[in-house]
């Protein structure tokens, strides 16, 4: 594994090495002046393809949209006994026809539906428990959102026993069993629903803004990521170098 003596030997005994090897050995052990000279020569010789490569890279950068329409965002609220939500890709497009699955705290399936043309979906709540809404748009694109049990009306039964998906009771029958806690007064309800809808629109907007902000913060992340990789490289090289010094 010890390369040092080998390459020094090759430089001394074989001056007519192949160009690639020569330039590399000089880069590795030659004085600084020589190294810059050789790399400049390499640069000039390959100026045309390098320029073409840079142009291609620039073209790709300008062709593509900066926004990542890749990440799937899910948002949902509970209205009465219905979970209403929507799923949209970061960048704005709705996720049409995506499969929505509600999963309970113990991994049991609580309900299934698909999103409509505008990426909206609604799901009847049958049990008062945490709902994890997983939206799968296919091809590995998915997002999830958690609806807490305390957002749901108290008259719903807790998920005792094993909740069964085949158990398709109509939502209206749900209030009968369990504890018959009186619902809120009926006239106040429509008002509340209207303001809830307005609130929902605002929250969705806020989330979109937040996503936009995250997108902007990305440049720093990229630089940071490359820094981490360089750091990991340094760590590996340090360990290898130590081992070699110890072995020598």
């Amino acid at each position: 594994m010890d390369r040092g003596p080998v390459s020094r030997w090759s430089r001394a005994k074989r001056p007519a090495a192949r160009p690639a090897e020569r330039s590399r050995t000089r880069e590795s052990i030659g004085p600084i002046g020589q190294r810059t000279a050789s790399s400049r020569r390499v640069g000039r010789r390959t100026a045309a393809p390098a320029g073409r490569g840079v142009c291609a890279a620039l073209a790709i950068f300008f062709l593509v949209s900066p926004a990542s329409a890749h990440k799937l965002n899910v948002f949902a609220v509970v209205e009465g006994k219905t979970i209403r939500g929507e799923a949209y890709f970061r960048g704005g497009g709705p996720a049409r026809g995506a499969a929505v699955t509600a999963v309970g705290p113990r991994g049991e399936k609580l309900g299934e539906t698909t999103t409509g043309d505008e990426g909206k979906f609604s799901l009847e709540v049958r049990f008062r428990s945490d709902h994890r809404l997983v939206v799968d748009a296919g091809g590995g694109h998915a997002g999830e959102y958690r609806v807490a049990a305390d957002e749901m009306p108290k008259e719903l039964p807790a998920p005792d026993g094993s909740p069964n998906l085949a158990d398709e009771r109509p939502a209206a029958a749900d209030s009968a069993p369990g504890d018959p806690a009186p619902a809120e007064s009926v006239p106040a309800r429509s008002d509340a629903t209207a303001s809830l809808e307005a609130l929902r629109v605002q929250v969705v907007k806020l989330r979109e803004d937040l996503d936009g902000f995250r997108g902007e913060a990305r440049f720093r992340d990229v630089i940071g990521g490359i820094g981490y990789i360089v750091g990991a490289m340094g760590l590996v090289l340090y360990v290898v170098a130590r081992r070699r010094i110890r072995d020598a």
Partner: protein
Amino acid sequence: MHIEEAVLTISPAGMAILAGGWGLSAIGVGLGLRRMDYERVPQVAMLSSAFFVASLIHVPLGFTSVHLVLNGLVGLVLGWAAFPAILIALLLQMLLLGFGGLTSLGINTLVMALPAVAVYGLFNRAARAKRDAVAFGSGFAAGALGIVLGAALLAATMFAAGDALERVAQVVLVAHLPVAVIEGFVTAAAVMFLRKVRPEALVAPLAAPAGLELSDG
């Protein structure tokens, strides 16, 4: 090409896939580290960085978008060392950019690194051919095949997790065809560039004893 963890954590089959992905990736990473010539650590890091950044280059495509992956290029140059390179890049993409997830890191590494190793076996020799046309063609094929094989693995994973077959085929395979073409050109350009500037970069990184690796360049 990143699988979000939400897709697989809701079904037992998905859980099995996640575990299997981790196991197989661990084997691949172990092989890659064992066979990696430590003179090439900087190269591995550079390609890992390229892979990390490439996923941010998005190409809009209808309602969704696809992005460059560069697993063909990474594999063509690194061979088995593509496994550790891709694992690190995916880990950072997860932590910093929110792609994929921690549990699906294993299966994602497998889906992208396995085609990379296949590409190495198929095209590394051809990419070092004397004729430029052959090298360009093999570079293109390497880039395109890296994506196509990756998409096929992704589709197989989604199918095994319970997605309907025609939906998987439509969303995964068709969506990746344009990116396969783009990636073919990018990889071919990179190969031509490497041939001119650093031909030794394309020489087998595995099983090549130090000092002898230039002998068949």
